[in-house]
């Protein structure tokens, strides 16, 4: 498919804007000299992911990303940055390793491999339309996937207890 044909669809223009914003903020997350900026740039990347989920008709997943990731996980990260006193000013402590090019080669190789394979497998197959309603997701989550759902809730409980046990101060005895 030619790029002009692809961009003629208005949804692809929206996709391109979201994708450019996501990639730019993701690059900022891994290169920023300021830890707080890196955490806040992750908000932009996750909001872009939520917008992509809306484009794919997955409304419940999109709002779960907004609630759980942007609402809770980023706040947790900001607390972690605050507690560990990571350098919020530039260049007091180096945030990166000195040698960046091996990591860049690994990342580029991974991207080249995955992009080549998916392009070979799914050349121009169109994405089907359709919106999956939250009610349908709830039905399937509490019928077919109820056992994994309970297991995941148990994982959350274990993580909650583990976080409390790890982070509290030992009592002097």
């Amino acid at each position, binding site marked *: 498919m030619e790029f002009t044909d*692809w961009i003629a669809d208005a*949804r692809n223009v929206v996709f391109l804007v979201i*994708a450019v914003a996501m*990639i730019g903020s*993701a690059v900022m*997350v*891994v290169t920023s000299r300021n*830890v707080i900026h890196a955490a806040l740039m992750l908000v932009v990347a996750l909001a872009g*992911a939520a917008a*992509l*989920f809306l484009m*794919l*008709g*997955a409304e*419940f*997943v999109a709002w*779960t*990303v907004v609630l759980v*990731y942007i609402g*809770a*996980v980023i706040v947790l*990260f900001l607390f*972690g940055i605050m*507690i*560990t*006193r*990571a350098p919020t000013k530039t260049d007091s*402590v180096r*945030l990166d*390793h000195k040698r*960046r090019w091996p*990591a860049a080669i*690994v*990342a*580029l190789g*991974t*991207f080249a491999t*995955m*992009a080549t394979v*998916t392009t070979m497998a*799914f050349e121009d*197959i*169109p*994405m089907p339309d*359709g919106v*999956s309603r939250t009610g349908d*997701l709830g039905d*399937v989550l509490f019928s*077919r*996937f109820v056992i*994994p759902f309970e297991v*995941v809730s148990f*994982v*959350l409980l*274990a*993580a909650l207890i*583990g*976080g409390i046990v*790890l*982070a509290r101060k030992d009592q002097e005895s």
Partner: protein
Amino acid sequence: MIVNQFLVLAALLFSIGIYGVLVRRNAVLVLLSIELMLTAVNINLVAFGQYVQDALLSGQVFALFVITVAAAEVGIGLAIVVLIFRNRSSANVDELDLLKW
């Protein structure tokens, strides 16, 4: 919309996350990069779920599970980072060599 555009974007985000995991020294920033990689995986799951038009919505259900496990992982990971910082007064991953001999 074609299927491949979502997959290539997810691959790019995953690669950026790999770069961040490899190049960052601060443990909190490594966890941030891992979140980036998990987001890329979620995009793949939802895109494939929409592609196969699954009646059971498995892609979205497993994306929800990944989000839940990622939240648990961040909670535990940050607790460990706080604990290490309290003991070693540093959260840099290349200074943690207790298990190295």
